[in-house]
């Protein structure tokens, strides 16, 4: 069956005439799910326990199998279950709308075109977690997005969906929009929290600063991505079990894939998770429509620039279970990987923020990596040693390599620097983010790096000889 789009989150966003205001949202059933959630009555389970409305909502989210859409794909139900609910301190919800992973442009579709959907998801999530104060931390560059959200919040407030005693259900909630500080690291959840507190976005060490226990203002805090919070609305609307039928086991629901690079039709597509392969996303006429004429695929960056690249033609082994329960090993072309959390992880990369970047054979792979590394060297917060020093070191070396200063040994040189950064050596996952591209580019295209370095070296030697001759 060919892959098709399945629009759940973006159901209305691109419909002609659909506007981001409350009236339009309500014409399309907006805030009905909130009404349903707030009207829930305590429920008694077969084993005699009473579940509060909040517990029921949280259970639905757990049942749904929802995994975070911000990058790590962490189970949302699990994240919520880790919140310290006994501390006596307020619990905060923070919506991560920093969307800075290069190649990612999905959250902004929701914010700009359907802001009330995000608000509804947040209000339900806040109710489910006894949150009275929530924040939207929006990327600083999204100036207009912040205005749209503030307008939507004002509308929701006026309509009684926010503020005191929401829908007369005795639930109070305020949502504040906070514009980001213009750095990629502000998207890392603990860096975000620091930034929200008015400080430099230095990610926090974990332990002890797990947001679920010691988050914003040292209170229990939930940080969820924009898209994740929108899914909560649909989970509550459909019921967790029904939602879990979307997608594939362990990779439920839909997700917005951002396709960019050298394809015919770059853009975003909402698909059931795992129901489309990378090949379909890139080549299917309904999606990317293939490469430009006469071009061949060279590389796929499958989950934002911090994910490890795939090389065209690369074979990956996926472990699975046959119908008899026995372990099976399935070897596939990388293009045949279903685009989901589990498969990409098993293939040694990740689906990250859902950003698929396609590079064709016209690409200078050294220059591509140099570009990525410049970004990371600029964005490292500089707090911890390996990332601070390593990210700039790699970037400088790559800059040299792209400007004629290469050496034959530079591929190894780069790999060795990169090897000293990830794997828990740093405070936050930026360490992985900046070193994985280098490890994978250099690892998979070693010949190109080596050839570039050797050519530079030879040229310098020849020039030297020419210079001595004259």
């Amino acid at each position: 069956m060919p892959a098709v789009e399945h629009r759940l989150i973006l159901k209305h966003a691109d419909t002609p005439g659909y506007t981001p205001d409350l009236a339009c949202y309500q014409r399309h059933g907006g805030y009905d799910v909130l009404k349903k959630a707030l009207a829930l009555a305590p429920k008694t389970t077969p084993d005699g326990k009473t579940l509060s409305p909040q517990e029921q909502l949280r259970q639905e989210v757990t049942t749904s199998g929802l995994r975070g859409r911000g990058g790590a794909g962490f189970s949302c139900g699990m994240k919520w279950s880790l919140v310290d609910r006994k501390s006596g301190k307020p619990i905060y919800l923070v919506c991560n709308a920093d969307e800075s992973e290069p190649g990612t442009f999905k959250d902004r579709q929701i914010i700009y075109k359907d802001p009330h959907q995000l608000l509804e998801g947040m209000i339900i999530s806040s109710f489910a977690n006894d949150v009275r104060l929530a924040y939207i931390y929006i990327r600083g560059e999204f100036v207009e997005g912040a205005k749209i959200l503030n307008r939507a919040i004002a509308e929701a407030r006026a309509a009684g969906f926010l503020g005191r005693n929401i829908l007369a259900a005795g639930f109070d909630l305020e949502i504040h929009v906070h514009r980001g500080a213009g750095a990629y690291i502000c998207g890392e959840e603990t860096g975000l929290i620091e930034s929200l507190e008015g400080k430099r976005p230095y990610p926090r060490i974990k332990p002890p600063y797990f947001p679920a226990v010691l988050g914003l203002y040292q209170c229990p805090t939930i940080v969820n991505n924009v898209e994740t919070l929108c899914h909560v609305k649909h989970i509550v609307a459909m019921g967790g079990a029904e939602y879990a039928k979307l997608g594939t086991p362990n990779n439920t629901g839909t997700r917005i894939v951002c396709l960019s690079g050298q394809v015919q039709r770059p853009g975003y597509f909402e698909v059931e998770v795992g129901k489309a392969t990378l090949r379909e996303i890139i080549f299917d006429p309904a999606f990317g429509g293939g490469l430009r004429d006469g071009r061949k695929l060279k590389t796929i960056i499958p989950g934002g620039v911090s994910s490890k690249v795939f090389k065209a033609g690369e074979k990956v082994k996926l472990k699975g279970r046959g119908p008899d329960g026995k372990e099976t090993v399935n070897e596939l072309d990388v293009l045949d990987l279903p685009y989901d959390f589990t498969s990409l992880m098993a293939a040694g990369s990740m689906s990250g923020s859902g950003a698929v970047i396609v590079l064709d054979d016209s690409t200078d792979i050294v220059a591509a990596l140099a570009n990525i590394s410049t970004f990371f060297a600029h964005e490292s917060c500089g707090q911890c040693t390996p990332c601070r020093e390593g990210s700039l070191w790699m970037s400088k070396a790559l800059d040299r390599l792209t400007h004629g200063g290469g050496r034959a040994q530079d591929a190894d040189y780069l790999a060795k620097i990169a090897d000293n950064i990830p794997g828990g050596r740093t405070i936050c996952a930026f360490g992985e983010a900046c070193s994985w591209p280098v490890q994978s580019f250099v690892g998979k295209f070693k010949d190109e790096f080596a050839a570039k370095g050797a050519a530079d070296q030879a040229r310098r030697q020849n020039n030297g000889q020419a210079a001595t001759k004259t």
Partner: protein
Amino acid sequence: MSEAATAKVFKPAPPVDRITVKVDGQVVVVPKLSPDWQGKLVPTTMIQACEAAGVTIPHYCYHPQLPVAGNCRMCLVEFGTPALGPDRKPVTNPDGSAVINKSPRPAIACATPVSPGMEIYANTPGVKAMRQGVLEFLLINHPLDCPICDQAGECKLQEYSVEYGQSATRFVEAKVHKPKAVDLGPRIMLDDERCILCTRCIRFTRDFVGDDALGIVNRGSYNTIATYPGHKFDNNYTLNTVDLCPVGALTSKDFRFEMRVWFLRETKSVCPSCGTGCNLLIGSRENRIYRYTPRDNPAVNGPWMCDAGRLDYKWIARDDRLKDARGSRPEVRTWRDVLAELAGRLRPATAGSVAIVASARLTNEELYLIRKLAQRLGAATDTIPHLGDGDRLLVNADKNPNTAGARLLGISAKPAGANLNDFAAGIRDGLIKTLIVFREDVTRFGLGADLLGRLDTLVASNVLPNETTKLAHFVLPGCAPAEKRGSFTNIHGRVQRITKAVEPPGDARPEWEFLGELLELITDRRAPATIEGLFNQMAGEVPAFHGLRWAALGDSGVTMPLEPGK
């Protein structure tokens, strides 16, 4: 009442929870909770457990007296925890030992709590490689200007380079350049290129001092320590950041380029600049003091001291120090003759005709001798309080280092200084004929030149000249605390030793020495000739000091109840 509740009532107080862990194969038992930098009990960390096992984990940013930052990554270790079965019980090997799941990721020892059965691997090839990696990263942009760096010899970069460094660099890129010789404040210079961004200085001034003066600007490898534009790093504790800085980035303007640290002799002593008595090290070479640095004493100052106290040593080397003993006639100028003449005048004095203005800047031993002298002469005594500004950290408003000692030894009036009016009246009325003044300029405290002119005998002992020493018939040059031994009793009753680091100038002598000799000349009884003997005699005689022995004071002192009996 339910059974459970009843049972609870009779439950004995729980013992301190302990955790057994292994460090490099060695079993150690540590408390489940340990004090953090503020003394609050928090889960014991790996670095503390390693310390308990005698295994030192290299570190830059961690400091037990500061909040944990976890940024340098030098302390990364590998570890494992007991494998749990489906029943949440530990799984055991055939030999009964626990099966350990080795963590795929390392952890920073400075911030990671230990858990029961945890195994910490602090010296595996993997751990060493991580340390090497961190050190290499720290050095690539470092200027490597050790030959002209003040930190050389006490630098953690140098120290760990010996253990984990490589002799050749593979870094072939251009180094990052940052500001050099940045004037951070009146006492601190910063070399941003040497800085390893451990944030110790930031945390110290923000969290300990409460002055959020330092921060980091710029991004990534260009990160730079700075003050807010237009602001100076200027509080009374800034120099502690020089000690805290693990490298040579922060230097003391007072000390930089003055002396290589390995030439300094370090003498344990106590700061005499206020009633707190911060423990310190006197750094000296060839009879010159180059610096004071704090000496860790958790009961007094922790590892810190204030800037004012730290820099209060310059006067010791002043040219106008009192160097010569002087009697009433020009020909009396050796100590023997001066003391003999003075003893001759004091011996026949009648009770009430002698008054002594002592000083709470003198040691317990010296004040004890003055007490004996006063008892023999029937002299009234007092001291002059010196009050200034205090703070909520270390600085006490009392600028005398031994106010408590002077009070406990009965030298001070109640309150201190209350007798001065009586002294003035006594002199005016001709009742007081002899005044002995230690370390004070009484002309500034109501005993002006006109009054002093009425005295038959004015004796002044001091280290620096003042109006009183100018008017005195007898001048007895004494010592700075750094030039003698003895003890002070701080404002909280802690008795602490001071130690001689340098020789006094000229004929100046420790007050306790000449006081002992003077006493012997007057009483024909020999006072103990050593500080140990003197202290122990005092402890036997003066109730407030009962039970103390000089030897027992050790390097960090002993606290006495300030009101005996309590």
